């Protein structure tokens, strides 16, 4: 399936800015198309509900929907996890009722900490919120076609 130019641009920018894994996911998901669940029928089973057995097929994503689908993947991979983690840290602080608690991930044997999920203060999701707002605006920030279609 052909990927439209705007999505190619987003993938290129992601890769250049160090988000290679997400760039790869975008390329794969948009290329493969949208998942659609289809029922498997036989002579005795006339409805999907009866059949119970389904397969997941992929159908092309319309060119007009590709950018929005790509931005939804970015939102799910970046914005939502940050907000969830922030809520987890807030709950940790509420459980103790005594100051703010950070949550870290450490190697259980070596005791070496992984990169922090957040370097901001507990409750500060400003950057993720701003990214979310930009992802909402991006579909309206494309260069319109010229009259001759160039």
């Amino acid at each position, binding site marked *: 399936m052909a990927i439209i130019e705007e999505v190619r641009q987003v993938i290129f920018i992601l890769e250049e800015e160090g988000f290679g894994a997400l760039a790869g996911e975008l390329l794969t998901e948009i290329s493969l198309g949208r998942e659609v*669940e289809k029922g498997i029928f036989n002579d005795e089973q006339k409805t999907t509900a009866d059949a119970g057995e389904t397969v997941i097929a992929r159908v092309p994503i319309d060119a007009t929907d590709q950018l929005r689908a790509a931005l939804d993947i970015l939102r799910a991979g970046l914005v939502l996890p940050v907000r969830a983690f922030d809520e987890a840290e807030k709950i940790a602080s509420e459980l103790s009722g005594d100051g703010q608690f950070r949550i870290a991930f450490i190697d259980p044997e070596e005791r070496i900490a992984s990169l922090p999920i*957040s370097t901001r203060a507990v409750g500060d999701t400003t950057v993720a919120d701003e990214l979310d707002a930009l992802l909402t605006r991006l579909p309206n920030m494309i260069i319109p*076609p010229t009259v001759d279609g160039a």
Partner: protein
Amino acid sequence: MPLSSTAESELRDMLRAFRAAHPGIIVPTGAGKALEAWVLMKLANTVRIQMGRFWRVSLRQGDGAILRPSTTFNLSSRPSRIQPRSSTAPGYVLIEHRTDTARRFELRGGLQWKGRSDAKHEIDVSLLPSVIGEAIRNSGGGHPHGLPIVAVECKDKGGSGPLDETRQTLARMYDLALVTQSVPGWSCRIYETNTLAQWGRKSTRYLTFFQKGTFGIVRTGHFQSGATTLARHYSIGHYPDIYNGGAIGFLQERFRETLLRVSNF
């Protein structure tokens, strides 16, 4: 139609700011770890908010001590056993009944349990009795054996969770359920091998085991309908679209019911 140069430069600036603010999200396992931490804390919060009259919740260090103010709550970055008692080992959430001291439990992330085959199974969020956790911690570390009281798999994946994903969860549960006991004459649900501490009662049927507890798969995406048919039969909850829908509330409710009935396990 390309993105405008303004759009491109805004996106680049935003991504750079994001990488500085949230470096751990960008690595391949980052978003999954965030999901695990969130599910673990949401379950702990269920007890604090809805059951606080009878139950107490606290964050604990790896040596069992209460976490000191303004310190870091460490979770395991990869699947592991319960570590020997140490303040620097991964911590856990202690959930204890206010009057019945027998009802004390540890909610843990990324813990490996051992099944009847002796294979290890990582459970993203699991609940075990403190009597087992303490025995392991105080005797050099190790793995709990048996079927957890709570076992939640966290899948940071879009799309439709396939049937095989639920089959894998079910296969783990079959190996963990002690329908046959490792020592003749025992009748327990969970045990550990360092001091032979035991907890709970044996069930003779798999389904009976699976009906006692909270078992589920949490997903950022959805599930294939056939997978849900299989899961429902074995009392494995499917919790789709976990960040956006009401599924987390259903998981919390099931966890609450489990704690209310845990004396009968």
